[in-house]
């Protein structure tokens, strides 16, 4: 009897022990106890959807996603100082992919190629070719996962233009005409005069791409490989010329039909003005399209999208003067207008710090993959506040995804059509992706363009200062190194 009791009690103990051992292992998750620190911009955009999706990801994998937000202009220095000094408080970053060269060359980023190749859930081939190549790949290896697709476009009030019998602007001259025509009219029914044009022009923000979008159509005519930043033989900046001069005139002219504090408006401010119905025209990334259908928007069904206006006059790079477009000069012109859609910024993308713990790297990759997978991404790109714009081929093809989000079929086709036309353009402009491109653009270009628009300096002084500033960086970094990097990005 005693033996039976002993056997029974031992059996019970064994069963309980087995249950205690098996149950946690069944319910334990892949990344339990792992925390991934991700650096990005402090804003409802980009950081917002990551924070929102982090709890779901934790339920699936057990990983804690800690998103650290800093102002846009602090992202680059935070990343560089953190990686270089070996602090490594940042395990991963979601940032402007054009900066990747500065982090890949010193070996700060994890090569994601093997992970991407073996990740069927990511559906890598569904990611648009431009985003797979320019925004993610460097030297044949994949370093970032795109979470966003970026192009500058023009948005117009379709209701106003239709009523007035005016077509969307095809040139910048037409843009100014439309802006002047509607400036001062009450466009949202609040009894107050509104604005013809709202373009973000704030310093130390995300405004310095705007001038490049204006100059693009005047400067690049012979396809993407021509580039707009430097001479591909000498690395001499292409800023002190008639094309930039004209772009500066247009840039200043738009300010006449804008809110009085336009030079201090960030993209968040101009987007707010647009959705409250206060602007007839604006230039922005894809965000406006999705913001305009959100609750509270006064421009739902009234927002039209178009590729960037172009120019009938283009730069003759030999004489430095503007000349009329013809078939030889502007092979990609449409009805005599040379369009050059600008892939400004390239779209927010995620990269992983090579020095992070291997488990953390795995969790970081899985999180980026999770965010980029169609199940999540298809939803996120239709929500304006996420700051994420379409970048998957299927997102351009599946109109139902957009109509169920609140777009009408016509407006979805118009919106996606404009992005697709930009993406497919053989004359699309690639953003600068050479070492220290952040200093060329975010420091020199940004400061001088803002000084010009503030009236501190003339356009001639601005062009000269940008040229001098860019030359100084080129000399410091080494002309041959920079030229070689520039030519590579253009496909030479």
């Amino acid at each position, binding site marked *: 009897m005693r033996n039976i009791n002993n056997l029974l009690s031992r059996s019970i103990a064994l069963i309980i022990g087995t249950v205690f051992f098996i149950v946690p292992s069944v319910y334990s998750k892949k990344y339990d106890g792992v925390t991934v620190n991700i650096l990005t911009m402090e804003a409802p955009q980009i950081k917002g959807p990551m924070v929102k999706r982090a709890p779901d990801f934790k339920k699936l994998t057990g990983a804690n996603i800690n998103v650290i937000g800093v102002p846009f*202009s*602090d992202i*680059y*220095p935070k990343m*560089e*100082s953190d*990686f*270089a*000094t*070996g602090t490594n408080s940042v395990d991963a970053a979601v940032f402007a992919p054009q900066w990747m060269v500065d982090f890949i060359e*010193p*070996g*700060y980023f994890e090569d994601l190629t093997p992970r991407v190749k073996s990740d069927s859930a990511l559906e890598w081939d569904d990611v648009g070719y431009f985003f797979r190549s320019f925004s993610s790949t460097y030297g044949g290896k994949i370093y970032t996962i795109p979470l966003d697709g970026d192009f500058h476009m023009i948005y117009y009030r379709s209701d106003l233009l239709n009523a007035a019998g005016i077509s969307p602007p095809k040139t910048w001259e037409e843009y100014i005409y439309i802006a002047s025509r509607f400036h001062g009219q009450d466009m949202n029914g609040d009894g*107050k005069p509104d604005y013809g044009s709202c373009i973000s022009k*704030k*310093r*130390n*923000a995300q405004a310095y791409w705007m001038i490049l979008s204006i100059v693009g159509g005047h400067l690049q005519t012979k396809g993407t490989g021509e580039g707009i930043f430097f001479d591909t033989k000498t690395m001499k900046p292409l800023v002190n010329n008639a094309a930039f001069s004209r772009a500066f005139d247009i840039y200043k002219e738009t300010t006449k039909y804008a*809110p*009085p*504090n*336009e*030079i*201090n408006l960030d993209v968040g401010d101009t987007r707010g003005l647009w959705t409250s119905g206060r602007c007839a025209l604006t230039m922005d990334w894809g965000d406006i399209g999705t913001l305009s259908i959100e609750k509270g928007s006064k421009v739902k069904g009234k927002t039209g999208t178009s590729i960037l206006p172009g120019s009938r006059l283009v730069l003759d790079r030999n004489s430095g003067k503007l000349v009329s477009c013809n078939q030889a000069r502007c092979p990609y012109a449409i009805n005599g207008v040379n369009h050059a859609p600008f892939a400004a910024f390239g779209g927010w993308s995620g990269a992983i710090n090579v020095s992070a713990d291997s488990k953390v790297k795995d969790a970081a990759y899985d999180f980026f993959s999770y965010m980029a997978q169609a199940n999540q991404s298809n939803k996120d790109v239709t929500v304006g506040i996420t700051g994420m714009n379409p970048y998957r081929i299927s997102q351009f093809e599946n109109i139902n995804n957009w109509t169920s989000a609140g777009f009408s079929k016509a407006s979805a086709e118009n919106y996606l059509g404009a992005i697709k036309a930009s993406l497919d353009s053989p004359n699309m402009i690639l953003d600068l992706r050479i070492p220290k491109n*952040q*200093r060329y653009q*975010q*420091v020199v270009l940004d*400061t001088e363009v*803002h*000084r010009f*628009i*503030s*009236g*501190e*300096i003339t356009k001639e002084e601005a062009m000269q*200062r940008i040229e*001098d*500033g860019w030359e*100084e960086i080129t000399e410091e970094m080494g002309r041959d190194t920079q030229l070689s990097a520039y030519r590579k990005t253009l496909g030479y």
Partner: protein
Amino acid sequence: MTIKTTLGERLDKQAPLVFILPSVIIILFFSIFPLIVSLFIALSRLKFVKGGVELKFIGFLNFKKLIFGSQQYHLLGTFDQLTPIGYIIISLFTLIIFVWFIRYFKSQKISITGSIGRIVVSGGMFFILLLTLINLTTPKGLPGTLVVTLVYVFIGVLVQFLVGLGLALLCVKKIRGRSFFRTVFFIPMMITPVGIAYLFRMLTDMSKGPFAPIVTWFGFEESSWEVIPWGARTAVMIGDAWQWIPFMFIVLIAGLESLPTEQKEAALMDGAGGWQIFRDITWPTLLPVSVTIILIRLIEAFKIIDLPNVMTNGGPGIATESLSLHSYFNWRTMDLSGSAAVGYLLLIVAVFICVSFVNLLKNKIELAHR
């Protein structure tokens, strides 16, 4: 005869060293050491490389770039030909300096250090005045971060002192609700500068801010003072004044309340007016404390950064950028050497102004004490 010292006495002798040394070491470590390192960084080119930083000694190249090179416009502003008014002001200043030197050399108190000090002060003041005139009174002249900082410092501190003094004179009188107003005036000092900057950013927003309806009523809807250089600078100075007037007020009211009343009463008995009493009795007694608080504010004002950064981002253009903000922007763009160089120039200017201020008023303070 030998005096035997006990162990306790020997330990007592070592006590000052034991107690002071830790403080000295801490100060050296946290203050002097960074100062030396940042000087070395200012004289080098710092580059982030894998595993840390790469420092290459380049001498005064960073300073040369700021004073004579591509960043001259940023630090010293844009130059233009001096106007006739500018020439008149400079001539008058030169005359005053000349008279000052003659009076000094005629006095019986000539010394080498005194002479050198006066030459340095007059030379520095001449340079600052000339730069200010070139930047602010010429058609094409534009102020750089140095003159913008000096505007914040001199105009800002002067306004803060005058308003603080006025409020202190009002509140020292036994008026109804005195305690309440004292507390209210003290509130801004307790708010963080960034909070004040955001507060004033909202207040100065003429399209959505609380003053928007008033501005619209006056017909100025299509205007924004933050896009006009002097409008933006004024907005920054108002925010700064709002924060620091309470400091002036609190210290000055304490000074006023500690003044002996006998002299005032005697003057009143003799028929002296309010202004006479203030000029001859109150002000001389208040001078030492005034000089002290102005000096403290001068030192603080040179470091202004939160307000222009949050309110205007240094704009329009670089119109509201102070030296500290200039240094911070350089740091943010990873130009750490350039940032250190600007920081050192700020230190030199601040030390020069503050030391000159104290030395110039030293005699008056001594007179007031007598």
